[in-house]
């Protein structure tokens, strides 16, 4: 039996490696001249025979030789319609549901890999069990992801055949590679999951961890390929004004917004995955019947929340980078996004992110009840809460107020003399940096709650940390005030980078000091896992729901800034749904999607619950003779 299993694993790994190695074959070099150039360089450097170099050069497909058609000029009659089906809503919901599940199943293996590695390093089996439990939830979601991906493709082919054909012509190689990678992903995932309890101890555990690494590599490649199709529609590369593609697959993939989206989605997926696992743990905690079960799911919930928050903290920076790149690609697109009809979306986003930060902090504060030593920090929590609420209100302040004529007259214009500035980016950047730093402070208090530092330099260490926070927060505030009130519009966003660097410096230096200072610290008392009020679990649910809804909303705006273009500037959308809907309508579709997604997630939780139930049907089975 072990030999058979080894062969299965070996075969799966070979398949995965083959798929990864085959990928470059479907992503030819930028063009013939570029393809030859490295070969020529190599010839001079390593004296490859000329014939060999020539052979290599001819192996590379000549992208220029392929004639691509121009983007079709469609009329409303060219879009197939089905009675009672709104084409845009159908594609919208299918794409969004696929993306939610895809994000989840790609994110879980990332932190499962880290948790498994921690378990191996600490030899604490609880980590291994927790990692497996995360995978158990993810594996059911994997099937749904594939089904929804198939549904999306079917709907696109049925309702938007010309758009699908245009994109498939340009991306045919990468779509083929995607299919190969999908098989590889499935093979590795199944071996990784079903072989979990078999590949234990010694070298076998290392093989299992390597499978986890491979799973993540293939998963990320899959996501990056799919991202390229999306970003090509926003920032098409190597196309002329008529939409004729004149590059190769890599040129189409490596379009302007590809990397910013890759980074943003990778970080957001981890935060989102953590929040969904948190909801799972909360559900199991609330349904737990024993003290041990409650303690177990409390511990899982804590870790899931930690993962979600750890990824949430850098997320605003990744979002900022993406937006800055949108401006760099097209100032018109950037302004439409932030200053045009979509500007109010960012006020809704502020409400959602405020809810995320407040619920995550609330959960941490509730979690301090697990420790006997937390009373030392309880009095400070209210100040953190005040700062979080003020920061939230600043972020929430719109630039342009909705006023009646009388109000406008009494205010003397659409902007308040002092508070109007709170609607601009420097104030919002200041607010978000405060939110992040004070959430980090909550976490530090939580971490310290059950420990007593024994290092001789504790007083000095604390003083350095207080000084670091004080100077950093003053610096962030001064930057915000200076760029907010005393510079013109062009320079206002310039505050963001020094503010971000200040925040990162505080977090990194403070973490290093804290780690050194609490090395070998005494425990006040064993932590009381499971000693959590039921309401704290609803904070975890709020985190999951708010994350899902926020992803749906931001996904909408990312797609909607193309406005009446299928592919920005080259392939016009002339369907009856080419108009941009108002935000209320968009929010309602996002809500419907979120309800569908949460219903499916609850179904997965339920499947996991019945999977662990064993019923002894007395008298049903015939006793063996």
């Amino acid at each position, binding site marked *: 039996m072990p030999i058979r299993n080894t062969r299965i694993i070996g075969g799966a790994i070979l398949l995965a490696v083959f798929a990864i190695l085959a990928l470059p074959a479907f992503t030819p070099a930028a063009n013939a001249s570029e393809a030859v150039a490295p070969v020529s360089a190599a010839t001079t450097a390593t004296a490859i025979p000329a014939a060999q170099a020539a052979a290599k050069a001819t192996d590379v497909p000549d992208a220029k030789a392929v004639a691509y058609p121009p983007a079709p000029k469609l009329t409303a009659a060219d879009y197939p319609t089905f009675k009672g089906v709104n084409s845009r809503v159908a594609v919208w919901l299918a794409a969004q549901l696929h993306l939610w599940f895809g994000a989840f199943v790609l994110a879980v293996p990332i932190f499962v890999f880290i948790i498994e590695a921690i378990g191996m390093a600490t030899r604490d089996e609880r980590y291994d069990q927790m990692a497996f439990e995360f995978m158990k939830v993810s594996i059911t979601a994997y099937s749904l992801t594939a089904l929804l991906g198939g549904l999306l493709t079917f709907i696109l082919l049925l309702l938007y055949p010309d758009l699908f054909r245009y994109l498939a012509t340009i991306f045919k190689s990468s779509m083929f590679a995607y299919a190969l990678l999908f098989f590889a992903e499935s093979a590795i995932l199944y071996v990784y999951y079903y072989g979990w309890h078999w590949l234990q101890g010694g070298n076998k555990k290392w093989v299992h961890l390597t499978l986890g690494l491979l799973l993540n590599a293939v998963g990320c490649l899959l996501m990056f390929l799919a991202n390229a199709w999306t970003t090509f529609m926003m920032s098409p590369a190597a196309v002329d*004004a008529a939409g004729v593609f004149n590059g190769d697959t890599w040129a189409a993939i490596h379009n302007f917004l590809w990397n910013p989206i890759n980074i943003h989605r990778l970080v957001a997926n981890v935060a989102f995955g953590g929040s969904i696992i948190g909801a799972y743990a*909360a*559900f199991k905690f*609330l*349904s737990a019947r024993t003290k041990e079960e409650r303690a177990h799911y409390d511990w899982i919930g804590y870790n899931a929340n930690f993962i979600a928050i750890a990824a949430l903290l850098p997320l605003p920076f990744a979002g900022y980078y993406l937006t800055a790149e949108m401006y*760099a690609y*097209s*100032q*018109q*697109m950037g*302004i*439409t996004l932030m*200053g*045009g*009809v979509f500007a*109010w979306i960012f*006020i*809704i986003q502020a*409400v*959602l992110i405020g809810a995320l930060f407040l619920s995550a902090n609330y959960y941490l504060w509730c979690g301090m009840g697990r420790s006997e030593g937390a009373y030392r920090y309880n009095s400070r929590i209210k100040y953190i809460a005040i700062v979080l609420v003020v920061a939230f209100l600043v972020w929430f302040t*719109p630039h342009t107020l*909705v006023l009646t004529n009388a109000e406008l007259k009494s205010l003397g214009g659409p902007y308040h003399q002092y508070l109007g500035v709170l609607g601009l980016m420097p104030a919002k950047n200041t607010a978000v940096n405060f939110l992040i730093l004070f959430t980090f402070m909550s976490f530090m208090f939580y971490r310290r709650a059950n420990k007593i530092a024994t290092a001789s330099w504790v007083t000095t260490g604390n003083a350095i940390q207080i000084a670091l926070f004080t100077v950093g927060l003053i610096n962030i505030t001064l930057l915000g005030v200076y760029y907010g009130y005393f510079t*013109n*519009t*062009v320079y206002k966003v310039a505050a963001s980078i020094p503010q971000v660097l200040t925040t990162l410096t505080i977090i990194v230096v403070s973490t290093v000091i804290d780690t050194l200072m609490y090395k070998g610290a005494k425990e006040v008392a064993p932590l009381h896992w499971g000693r959590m009020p039921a309401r704290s679990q*609803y904070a975890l*649910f*709020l985190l999951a*729901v*708010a994350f899902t*809804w926020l992803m749906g909303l931001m996904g909408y705006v990312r797609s909607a800034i193309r*406005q*009446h*273009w299928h592919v*920005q*500037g*080259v392939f016009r*959308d002339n369907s009856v749904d*080419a*108009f*941009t*809907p*108002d*935000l*209320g309508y*968009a*929010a*309602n579709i*996002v*809500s419907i999607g*979120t*309800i569908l997604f*949460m219903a499916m997630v*609850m179904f997965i939780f*339920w499947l996991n619950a019945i999977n662990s139930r064993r019923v002894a049907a007395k008298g049903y089975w015939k006793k063996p003779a």
Partner: protein
Amino acid sequence: MTNFLKVSGFSLLMIGGFSAYSNFGIPQIKPAPPPVEEKLELGAMTMDQFIALGGKIYNEKGTCTLCHNAMGRAPMLDKIGSVAAENLKNPNYKGAAKTVEEYLHESLVKPSAFVVAGFGKAGSNDTESPMPDVSGGGIGLSEAEIAAVIAYLQDSSGSEVTVSIPAMPAAGAETSKAGATAPLKTPEEIIAKYTCGACHVVAGHAVGSQTGTLGPSLARIGATKSREYLRQAILDPDAVIAKGYAAGMMPRTYGEQLKAQELEMLVNYLAGLK
């Protein structure tokens, strides 16, 4: 089960709250519909109307005011007439324009020919403009529309308007271009062009297969219908519906597409089919 209902209820409440806020907590701005390519009647336009058209394009379709406003994202253009002449002499100017009009045209379609100090793309040291080519991509102005914008910029900055109203048709003016062509000469040409035979039986001439059955047969239509009836049936097809046929099948656009001469020729021809 109780927990399942509780968390489901809680989740629905949260989702409902987010939706309600988005519907009632923020203003519901109705975004403008996608721009349509307007037919420009340049032939009948005075210079004042042409300048006004330029102003409309500048503020709407051209999306110029997204950046050229008091916020400081792009240079203000209120004095562009005089500033352009100075920019032409600037050593950093890389274009080929000789006149202010040419400079403005170049600025619209090749914005990097001259970048005003401080307004270049980040990191380009003012050698590259963040402005798109207005004749392509998402803006897509035609040559006539660009000329109108130049006329508006010259006029609004107090300079002499040197642009003349182009004689050529603008983007979207394909119909008017078709309209400028000579009228069709025979009824057969008209029937062939407007594919009447796709829906009607039109006997008595040799144009394609005229055997359509979606509309009534026209083979002997002149025997039963007057000229007035036929004229009305072409211009307003749903005014009277022949028994056994559905309303709304025949296009209502022939009145705009047919020239008067063609309409009369067609009516006379049909009236003669007996």
